[in-house]
């Protein structure tokens, strides 16, 4: 009888392993198209981009550890990006003192376009241009705008695609605010 039991367990184990392989295959291939290489809870990939206005000022994500980083990917042709910018600018003014950094990453456009665009909106926050789309690739950004909330520990807190309201922006900044000592 013992042998019989053992055989049953072996069979069950084989079937479970094979079933798991099928489930894994179906699941990953179903989610493959939309798979976010980057996921909430992951360590946010480090990057370094040159400031739009000061060519010797480099924004390196790891330098912001201890602060919450509100990382926003955008382009001048993207209507919702444009709409959320003034609210971001206003909320940044509020949360800057509380240890939240805003960094807006333009996708490979020219300095001229980016500067004119930001000036016309009268918004004020650090801006960089991802010339080679390397950061965009590392963060697997597809639709614009995409906002990545990075907590003071350098981990991804939330990934937001699409336009945000001012209220949402405020609550997002609140959520990554470092705790005051």
């Amino acid at each position, binding site marked *: 009888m013992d042998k*019989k039991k053992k055989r*049953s367990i072996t*069979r*069950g184990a*084989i*079937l479970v392993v*094979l*079933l798991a*392989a*099928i489930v*894994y*295959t*179906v699941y*990953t*291939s*179903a989610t*493959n198209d939309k798979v976010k*290489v980057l996921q909430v809870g992951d360590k946010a*990939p*480090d*990057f*370094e*981009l040159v400031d739009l206005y000061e060519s010797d000022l480099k924004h*390196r*994500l*790891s330098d912001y550890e201890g602060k919450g980083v509100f990382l926003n990917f955008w*382009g*001048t*042709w993207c209507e919702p990006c444009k709409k959320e910018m003034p609210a971001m600018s206003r909320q940044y003014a509020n949360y800057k003192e509380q240890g939240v950094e805003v960094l807006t990453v333009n*996708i*490979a*456009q*020219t*300095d*001229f*376009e980016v500067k*004119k665009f930001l000036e*016309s909106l009268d918004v004020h926050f650090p801006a*960089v241009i*991802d*010339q*080679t*789309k*390397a*950061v*965009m*690739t*590392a963060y697997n950004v597809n639709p614009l705008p995409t906002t990545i909330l990075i907590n003071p520990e350098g981990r991804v807190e939330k990934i937001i695609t699409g336009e945000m309201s001012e209220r949402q922006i405020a609550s997002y900044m609140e959520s990554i605010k470092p705790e005051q000592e």
Partner: protein
Amino acid sequence: MEKIICVCGHENPAGTKLCGKCGRPLTEEAKSSKIVDMKYDGAAIRSKTRNKSMVDKIWNFFSSVKVGISLIIINLIAASIGTIFPQEFYISVSTDAEKEAYYENTYGSLGKLYYELGLSDVYSSWWFQILVGMLAISIIVASIDRGIPLHRSLKNQRVKRHESFLKRQRIIAEGPIINGDSANTLNLIEEKMKKLKYKVRRDGNALLAERGRFSRYGPYINHVGLIIFLAAVMLRLVPGFYVDESMWVREGEMRAVPGMEGYFIENEKFILEMHDNEKTENQELQGVNVVAKNYQTNAKLYKQTDDAVPGKADDLELVKEYSIRVNHPLQHEGYSFYQMDFRLNEIKAMNFVLTNKETGESFGEVHVDLTNPQDEYVINDQTKVQLLGYYPDFSGFENGEPQTATPNPNNPAFIFKMTTPDKPEGEVSFVAIQQTVEPNGDNAYKMAFKSVETRNMTGLTVHKDSSIPFLAIGGAIFMIGVAIGSYWNHRRLWVEQLDDGSIRLAAHTNKNWFGIKKDIDAVVEFAHLPKYIDQSDDDAEKEKEGDSTL
């Protein structure tokens, strides 16, 4: 579990057809048949031995050959239905909505159904993957279920078999030897069979000569190959194992390579060459004017230093310089860059002439590089043109503001402010292709379009497939298994010398009866044995190769 105890005292598991020790037929069916069924050497197929718990029921379902064959057929049918309309891969639309519309518009409601059932991308559809997975389970379970008992029964073969086993073999002989010393007969048989490359074992007055036993493992080896193959295909889904990305790079641009961290590719030049022949008859027939000779991207592959982070582009190291052409990809560390697509003549720079509208007098030229527009273009100390706005893909005004639909210069538009000696306060003009708006009334000057500079864009795909070695190994093992199972056969000869010196002989092979008969003919002559008979009277049966798969 019920056991069947053979007359010889050997305990056999339920479902056994032929006793594992002496070979006596155990079932009524086996007892009444003239020739016994030698599949799995009469051992009990595991799934036949027990059928109780849920696990056993599932196990038995998958171990069934009928189920396995049904699964193969269902898979084949599904895959062939997938060839009726083109797969999504071959359709040049990108979004899901466009794909759906394409199938509906091109093939009607049948096309819509085709798309909705996932037949348009059959290998990625969940139900097809489940079918293939079930087939894999069937292969594995059936192999374990049959392979292990077969292996055991082959390994534990006795030399001596019971008369009832021998008499039920297809080839048998019985009788006294023709001449010579009967005491020497078994020695002669052994000598001849060894010469014929049989392995010979003896046990008292019995002899077993066996050859090519490993061929019985051919089907199991080929199943292992198949499973490795399927596992390799599955491995492609593991991140980093399989990369298939496409990217566009304009001439002069450098782009991070998707799926290949830390690498950048620069497009130095894209070249499209055409044959300059006269139109051939075939070209005429097909309405083709010119035929492309070469699509080429002169590319440079760069790598960041290992400690560098994305975006840092000032410490790149040139890895490779290569002219990517069709079928000549740039290759590096398992990655290949293939020439896939191109777009010609995207606007890169525009030249304007600052012109007095009335007199047509030119005040100088302005060169606007769209990849790096400047705030101000100074012509001389009293004349300059300021650029107030640049919209690469102008799509109309919204609240008086020009809008751009995309970042690509498909329809560039500009706002210029022209400062001239007689208009020192400047005149503003909005200039787009075939459209000029002068917001402050009539201007005295205009930016007359003069010429355009273009550049090409190359479409590359980045490909990496680490599953190929596994696919090759799986395929090779599969072929080895097929070859072993097809070109070798398991031949056995049982001989027993009775007390009176006469010989009882039986032979079996899993295929190629002609071959074994030749061997027996040789040994019959050499050892002066009685003539054998082929009990299979049915001619069709004689031709049949028998149990060739398992």
